C-alpha cells in the first residue's frame, strides 16, 4: 500500500488520512462538515444506551418484542433508532436453556447505530478467533460460566446481518420502570459476553 513515512511526531496514518480527506475535499466528493457530522453523531449520540432502550422496551411490551424478534431494524425504527449502516438486524433471545453471543470472525461488523462503536477487544484477533473455536472456555474466562445444559449459540456477523442479544429479563423486576430496566442492561449483555442482569441493592 505504498511507502509509509517515518515522521517523529505525527503517525503516518494521521498524515495519510489527512491527505486523503484533503484530496476528497478538493475533488468535491465530500466536505469536512460531512465528516464532522458522522464523527459527532457517533461520539455524542450513539452508544450502548441506545440498544438498552430497545431491549427494555421489549421487556415491558410483548407486542414490541414480537416485532423486534421478527424484524429488528423495523422495530428499532419505531423508536427512532437506526441508520444506513445496518441493513438487517437480527435480535437473538437468551432463555434459561440458550445463551447467545456475537462475533465477527472476518473483520468487526457490529450494529453501530444500536450499540455505537465496538470496543477494542471485539476487534482483536484473540476474541474473533477464539469465540468460534472454544466459546464456552472463552466465555468462562470472561466470567460467564454456563452449565453444560445451556446451549451456546455463536452468531458470526459475516454478511449484511448484524446481531443483538436480548438478555433475559431479571426476576423480581416487576416494579422497575422501563427506564430503570434500561439502566441495568450493558453493552456486554447485548454482545453476549455477560449474561446475568445485576440489580442494585
Amino acid at each position, binding site marked *: 500500500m505504498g511507502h509509509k*513515512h517515518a515522521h517523529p511526531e505525527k503517525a503516518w*496514518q494521521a498524515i495519510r488520512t489527512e491527505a486523503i*480527506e484533503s*484530496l476528497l475535499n478538493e475533488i468535491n466528493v*465530500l466536505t469536512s462538515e460531512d465528516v464532522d457530522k458522522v464523527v459527532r453523531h457517533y461520539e455524542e449520540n450513539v452508544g450502548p444506551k441506545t440498544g438498552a432502550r430497545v431491549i427494555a422496551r421489549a421487556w415491558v411490551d410483548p407486542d414490541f418484542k414480537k416485532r423486534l424478534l421478527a424484524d429488528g431494524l423495523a422495530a428499532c425504527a419505531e423508536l427512532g433508532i437506526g441508520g444506513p449502516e445496518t441493513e438487517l438486524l437480527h435480535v437473538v433471545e437468551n432463555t434459561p436453556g440458550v445463551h447467545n453471543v456475537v462475533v465477527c470472525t472476518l473483520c468487526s461488523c457490529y450494529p453501530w447505530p444500536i450499540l455505537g462503536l465496538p470496543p*477494542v477487544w471485539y476487534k*482483536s*484477533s484473540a476474541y474473533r478467533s477464539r469465540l468460534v473455536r472454544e466459546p464456552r472456555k472463552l466465555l468462562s474466562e470472561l466470567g460467564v460460566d454456563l452449565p453444560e445444559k445451556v446451549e451456546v449459540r455463536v452468531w458470526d456477523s459475516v454478511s449484511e446481518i448484524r446481531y443483538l442479544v436480548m438478555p433475559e429479563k431479571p426476576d423480581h423486576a416487576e416494579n422497575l420502570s422501563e427506564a430503570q430496566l434500561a439502566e441495568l442492561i450493558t453493552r456486554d449483555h447485548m454482545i453476549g459476553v455477560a449474561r446475568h442482569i445485576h440489580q442494585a441493592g
Partner: protein
Amino acid sequence: MQSETLSAALRQSGFENLTFSTPWSARLFGMTLAASEKQCFTLQQFQSALIDRISEKEQDGCITTDDDYYTCWLEALQGLLEERNMWQAHQLREREVEVVAAGEHRKEQQRQRQRQHHHTVQPEVVK
C-alpha cells in the same frame, strides 16, 4: 492477545459511549461513512476490502490495538478509492508532503507566538 488481556480489556469497558482513540481514526471512520453515503462505494464493498486487509495483516501477526485495526481500515479505504481512480498515486504522495509541511508551519507559528508572549505584557481583564 492472550485471554488475560482480553478479560482485562473487557472489565475496563464501561457503559459510556466509546470515542475514538486517535483523531485520525475518527476522521477515517467519518470519511468512510460519508463517502459511502455519497455513493462512492457501498458499505458492503468497504467491508469486503476491510476483511481482505485484516486477513493479510493476520498472516503476519495479531490485531491487538485500535491502531492495528484502524491501520487496516485506512489501507482498505485507500485501496477502494484508488480502484475508483479518485487520484493519481503521485497526488497522494505530494499531498502527504504538504500535510507534513503545513503541520511544521503551524508549529513554527505557535513557537513564534509563544516567544512573543514572553516579551510582551499581556492585558488583563479586571472585573
